[in-house]
């Protein structure tokens, strides 16, 4: 099941620079998208979300962009900090109208921010 794909298993950036994490989806029914950060031996931590009626949502250093026609979303972290080093998961759900809430996760991208 590859409905949500994160094609880059890892990404390394310098502290202070921009980190861009990408996610593609195939299910056109998805209408709500989320990014989670995960440290080893911990649960996913919610970062930011976006509904399909928007193309951008910003929260501090984190911005999510949604391109519905391309079925693509990205997470921008500016400026990147060493504490941002973690695995980032993209997730999607298809239920704003129907009430369905099951999240479908991508495989994750490991971000390493070099000091």
């Amino acid at each position: 099941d590859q409905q949500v794909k994160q094609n880059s298993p890892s990404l390394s950036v310098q502290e202070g620079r921009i980190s861009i994490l990408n996610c593609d989806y195939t299910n056109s029914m998805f209408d709500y998208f989320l990014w989670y950060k995960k440290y080893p031996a911990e649960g996913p931590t919610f970062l930011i979300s976006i509904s399909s009626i928007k193309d951008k949502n910003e929260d501090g250093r984190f911005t999510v962009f949604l391109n519905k026609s391309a079925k693509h979303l990205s997470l921008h972290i500016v400026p990147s900090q060493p504490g941002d080093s973690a695995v980032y998961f993209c997730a999607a759900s298809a239920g704003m109208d129907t009430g369905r809430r099951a999240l479908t996760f991508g495989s994750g991208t490991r971000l390493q921010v070099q000091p």
Partner: protein
Amino acid sequence: EPEVTQTPSHQVTQMGQEVILRCVPISNHLYFYWYRQILGQKVEFLVSFYNNEISEKSEIFDDQFSVERPDGSNFTLKIRSTKLEDSAMYFCASSEVGSPSYNEQFFGPGTRLTVL
């Protein structure tokens, strides 16, 4: 800051035994979920629960699994007869009901289940 808690952090059991994983969702949340992550694989949805009943479940959530909200704070996942392939990290999550945070799910730290 309110958080989802899960107990135990690690559960070891023999194949065929019953296990109960426990979760305390965030107190004002009304939607509850279980997910699992088998080592090296994606996080997978198992079940969602609202208003004292299952609202959605995946094909993984077969008759061996059940969920319950036995009181006003706990949410449990029971596996009746564990199999080797049930070994995984099990995450509980909860969310509010209304917009704009309609499906922002907050996860607990997980229970690592090891079936021998």
